[in-house]
């Protein structure tokens, strides 16, 4: 059947033809449309429409004159004549107040709305299976109607109910999704969904976040060319109830009670569960779905990512708690399918692992029903020698919690970049350094000297070895020597140093065998619009999602791919801490009100306080240096991450030692926090922001806090720090002669068993260090 020409395409609009046609062929539809027309006219402020509606309603009751609304007798059935009269009157009235074109447009939209009734019914009815819903979506697609042609209310109800069925019940999420995920998108999606035959599951948190971001970006790209071409890799989704099907099929129901066992037992039995899962079987239906997916994904590497119901919701990020597994996807179809199923089984088993169970217990989510969806996604990258890897990958955050300069605002954001697969950027790796940049301050670099740029650069790279068929970590040097110019994006990422110490981006004259290259990312950061795009992307997504986000991305050197998007999340002790009110003055050790990041140090047992005045009065270089040595010695003996270091100005000062204690990272590596005290009334440049070892602090989770006592509301309790007994001589008798400068406060001994809690809240830009009984501070 060829579609009718649009109303304004014809030489004339004649609604009467349409109405006559409907009267003959679909009287109930004509009735529904007449009702909508009257409503439409009422909303448009046509008084006669009100009267008509009222008259019709009274006719319906069969009583002339007023009647009480709460009558107990049944309504009279309407006579067909009255209904026919009502229809005629409605359209006659419409013809008198609306243009012919407008009437035809309304008729067309409402007829289309009416035709989508089956889809609304299918998606609203919670007993419909995903397979039935998919059929309904197919039927909708065949109708050739775009959801923008529907009336707003119908469009909304469809988008919302589909988002609820496929993605999540989260209202916050649905609010964003209904503005950008269209009904047609769900039609496309169902071709990439693998589900059990009677599935009523969802795609899970991670998948939903990524889909939402993908469509937000798609709608924005049309308006903002600066975002460029941002894509999402080809992805298949196994629904969350796939795991239930798997468990039932293999009679593994005894795993359901795992979460209530003592955590030690969970930990002990987990390896066994993993093996049991890996030796179980998938249903033929699921295998068929996976096989189709593999055919479409081809033989490039894929990643199997968890996407559980609880994952990536606001406040419960489950970062790194569930598995993500890379597959080289090599060999015969049977081998590739076997490896894929093995990986999915392992992701399923991770639901019963000790880490997520502990995480859920801590957040009171143990009793909440959890299901595990899976994303099967092609890995972004290209082949370089025998390896497969993206040029670069990383994570980006709307909120920058690691500011290394007072010029960086929290909403300038942060990106962490690595060469190769993004696994090394997602987690802190301790012995390696991703490149950090603030998209809102694209010109500022943490590392400015050649030494810093080399030391704090990525030294390792995660790749997929296509010969061995495994995911592996290589020294970057080794990879660069082996693949040289074939490294994707080499010219954007790598630099060599000439004999004078001047960095040069690698170019045609680079000889990988002779010249060591370092990943500085300078080309990417300063010669491409990358940071501007990231800034735009973060701003766009956080605005549409309604809060700060974190993203994972990768690039094959040409195109930027979005891999994950979720509300910005925090670890147990990294989130904004509740702040106490009305703490008695004598229990406060210090408060800060500038450049505060988030977090909580709940159990500090020792404070090492380098008295700024006594330090400044030291007469010679040798004594100034010896303070740094004493701090290094304390770092070796005090309990790891349970002491904080407080001292004047710039810790690790390399120039004028008087500005701060001369230490290297090795001298402070065990502290929980580094506090820099500006001179009283001093300003920002007095403190270093930890720049001398900033990335060491970031990667090892050591907090940094500058104090500006005497400015704003910042306080420093000199009395406590100076009059508490100094334990230096007990801890390190050989350094007792520095007791006037270096004070070691054993908090429990000085306060009768209390600890020091440092509570930091970046939203309030405020931190409080207070003496309190041991235990986590919850704000109560």
């Amino acid at each position: 059947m060829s579609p009718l020409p649009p109303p304004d395409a014809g030489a004339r609009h004649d609604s009467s033809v349409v109405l006559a046609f409907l009267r003959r062929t679909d009287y109930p539809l004509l009735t529904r449309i007449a009702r909508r027309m009257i409503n439409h006219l009422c909303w448009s402020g046509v008084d006669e429409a009100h009267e008509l509606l009222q008259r019709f309603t009274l006719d319906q009751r069969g009583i002339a004159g007023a009647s009480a609304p709460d009558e107990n007798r049944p309504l009279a059935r309407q006579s067909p004549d009255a209904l026919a009269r009502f229809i005629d009157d409605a359209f006659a009235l419409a013809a008198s107040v609306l243009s012919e074109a407008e009437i035809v447009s309304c008729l067309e939209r409402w007829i289309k709305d009416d035709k989508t009734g089956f889809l609304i019914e299918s998606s609203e009815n919670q007993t419909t299976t995903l397979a039935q819903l998919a059929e309904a979506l197919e039927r909708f697609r065949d109708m050739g109607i775009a959801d923008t042609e529907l009336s707003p209310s119908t469009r909304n109800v469809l988008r919302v109910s589909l988002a609820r069925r496929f993605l999540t019940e989260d209202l916050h999420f649905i609010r964003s999704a209904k503005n950008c995920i269209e009904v047609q998108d769900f039609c496309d999606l169902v071709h990439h969904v693998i589900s059990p035959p009677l599935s009523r599951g969802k795609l899970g948190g991670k998948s939903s976040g990524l889909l939402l971001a993908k469509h937000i970006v798609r709608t924005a790209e049309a308006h903002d060319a600066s975002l460029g071409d941002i894509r999402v890799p080809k992805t298949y989704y196994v629904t969350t109830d796939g795991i239930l099907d798997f468990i039932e099929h293999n009679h593994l129901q005894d795993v359901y009670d795992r979460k209530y066992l003592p955590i030690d037992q969970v930990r002990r039995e987990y390896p066994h569960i993993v093996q049991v899962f890996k030796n179980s079987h998938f249903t033929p239906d699921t295998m068929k779905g996976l096989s189709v997916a593999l055919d479409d994904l081809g033989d490039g590497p894929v990643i199997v990512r968890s996407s559980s119901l609880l994952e990536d919701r606001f406040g419960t990020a489950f970062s790194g708690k569930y598995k993500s597994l890379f597959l080289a996807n090599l060999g015969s179809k049977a081998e590739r399918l076997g490896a894929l199923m093995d990986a999915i089984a392992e992701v399923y088993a991770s639901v019963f692992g000790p880490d997520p169970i502990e995480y859920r217990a801590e957040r009171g989510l143990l009793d909440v029903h959890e299901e595990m969806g899976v994303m099967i996604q092609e890995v972004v990258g290209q082949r370089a020698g025998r390896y497969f890897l993206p040029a670069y990958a990383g994570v980006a955050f709307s909120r920058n919690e690691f500011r290394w300069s007072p010029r960086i605002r929290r909403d300038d954001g942060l990106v962490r970049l690595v060469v190769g697969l993004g696994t090394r950027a997602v987690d802190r790796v301790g012995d390696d350094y991703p490149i950090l940049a603030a998209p809102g301050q694209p010109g500022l670099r943490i590392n400015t000297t050649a030494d810093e740029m080399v030391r704090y650069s990525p030294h390792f790279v995660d790749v997929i070895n296509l010969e061995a068929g495994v995911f592996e970590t290589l020294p970057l040097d080794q990879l660069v020597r082996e693949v040289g110019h074939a490294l994707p994006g080499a010219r954007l990422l790598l630099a060599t140093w000439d004999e004078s110490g001047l960095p040069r981006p690698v170019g045609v004259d680079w000889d990988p065998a002779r010249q060591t290259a370092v990943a500085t990312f300078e080309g990417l950061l300063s010669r491409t619009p990358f940071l501007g795009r990231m800034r735009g992307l973060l701003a766009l997504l956080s605005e549409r999602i309604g809060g700060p986000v974190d993203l994972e991305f990768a690039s094959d050197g040409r195109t930027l791919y979005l891999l994950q998007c979720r509300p910005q999340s925090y670890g147990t002790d990294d989130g904004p801490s509740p702040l106490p009110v009305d703490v008695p003055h004598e229990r406060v050790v210090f408060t800060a009100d500038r450049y505060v990041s988030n977090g909580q140090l709940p159990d500090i047992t020792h404070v090492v306080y380098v008295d700024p005045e006594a330090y400044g009065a030291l007469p010679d270089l040798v004594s100034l240096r010896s303070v740094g040595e004493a701090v290094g010695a304390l770092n070796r003996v005090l309990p790891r991450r349970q002491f904080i270091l407080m001292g004047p100005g710039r810790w690790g000062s390399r120039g004028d030692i008087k500005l701060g204690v001369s230490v290297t990272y090795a001298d402070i590596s065990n502290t929980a926090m580094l506090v820099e005290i500006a001179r009283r009334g001093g300003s920002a440049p007095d403190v270093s922001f930890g720049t001398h070892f900033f990335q060491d602090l970031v990667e090892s989770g050591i907090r940094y806090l500058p104090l500006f006592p005497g400015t704003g509301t910042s306080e420093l309790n000199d009395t406590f720090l100076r009059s508490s007994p100094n334990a230096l001589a007990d801890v390190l008798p050989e350094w007792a002669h520095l007791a006037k400068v270096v004070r070691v406060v054993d908090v429990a001994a000085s306060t009768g068993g209390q600890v020091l809690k440092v509570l930091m809240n970046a939203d309030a830009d405020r931190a409080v260090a207070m003496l309190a009984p041991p235990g986590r501070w919850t704000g109560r």
Partner: protein
Amino acid sequence: MSTKPFNAFEMAQAQFDRVADLLDLDRATRELLRVPMREYHFSIPVRMDDGSVKVFRGFRVQHNDARGPAKGGIRFHPHETIDTVRALATWMTWKCAVVDIPLGGGKGGVICDPHHLSMREQEGICRGWVRQMWRNVGPLTDVPAPDVMTTPQHMLWMLDELETIRGEHLPGFITGKPVHMGGSLGRTEATGYGVIFTLREALKVKGIDIRTCTASIQGFGNVSQYAVRKLHELGGKVVCVSSWDQADQTSYAFFKADGIDADALMGIADKFGGIDKAKAKELGYTVLPGADWIAQEVDILIPAALENQISADTVGRVHEKVKVIVEGANGPTTPEADEVIKQRGIFVVPDFLANAGGVTCSYFEQVQSNMNYYWERDEVLSKLDTKMTAAFHSVYEMAERQKFYMRDAAYAIAINRVAQASRDRGWV
């Protein structure tokens, strides 16, 4: 404990006063050399990335240019003080004089922290510095170089600005340039080779055959790596080097009785000279705690890493066999340890003589740039040998003649040369 806080310039003046007494300098010469001849303090307005203008404070101190154009680095430091810059300019005067190169001493800087500035803003500071100072600096007036938190890139911006203002090419204005922009070959080797040239001469005057000598070196960075190679080339043997292990956050010493192989160790070291200890064991090295470099039974110790490594605590560990200490690093020996070394009769080649290979090569760079003709590497290194050898002998002769400790003799000869030049010019 005195309550007077540490001040670098006062320390430099006290050092000068002591040597001035040894040299019996007259009052006018003392007054001239005790303080810098010229100091420039100026403002550098820079348009920041956000459109605002920020004014930075810049300095240049020319301590003394009686022997030639002032020479010294430009530092970017957020808390630079004029006294630190004065002290460093003074030391540059003595350092140039001790190796007898025709340059004076200078130092400069800007109060800023590059960590908080974009590259464009840093370029603005560099060009602004030259706009303020161009009348008072130049290849024949005052020659800067990279220093703390400044890089060759900063220097090239400064060079470009000066050349733009003056309308001519003046590569001799800056040293530490890349080779293709007028830098000198041999720069990488210069300091390490210089250390060994002075060591070779020290052994000669002490009548020790270098081919029978063993050495232990602290550090495995640029200086140490080239020192090891040169010493082996001369027939000596380095049996121990120490290096920092980034992963373990501690240092280790690597010992091999029949001599270490610098090339093999560099093959298993990271970019900072951190040696892979597992691989070193495979190569037959004994891995010891880092501090053990000082306790080796060797003839020669070369501290070539950090300051204050031979201290009151560690000097007792120096083996009785040790005859010579060559200070490759700056300030590796504390005053207390220096006293012990003096008493034990160990011969010391002091830091600002031993590691002057670097500044000597900078001088060569300036000479080559000024004549726009560049020497081959061997020519640079051979001229370096000549300079370092002559410098050593001047200091040694002074020490012998006046019965000065080598460190005092080095200062004495440097200060005496500057005083002499000032007198020759009729200034004092």
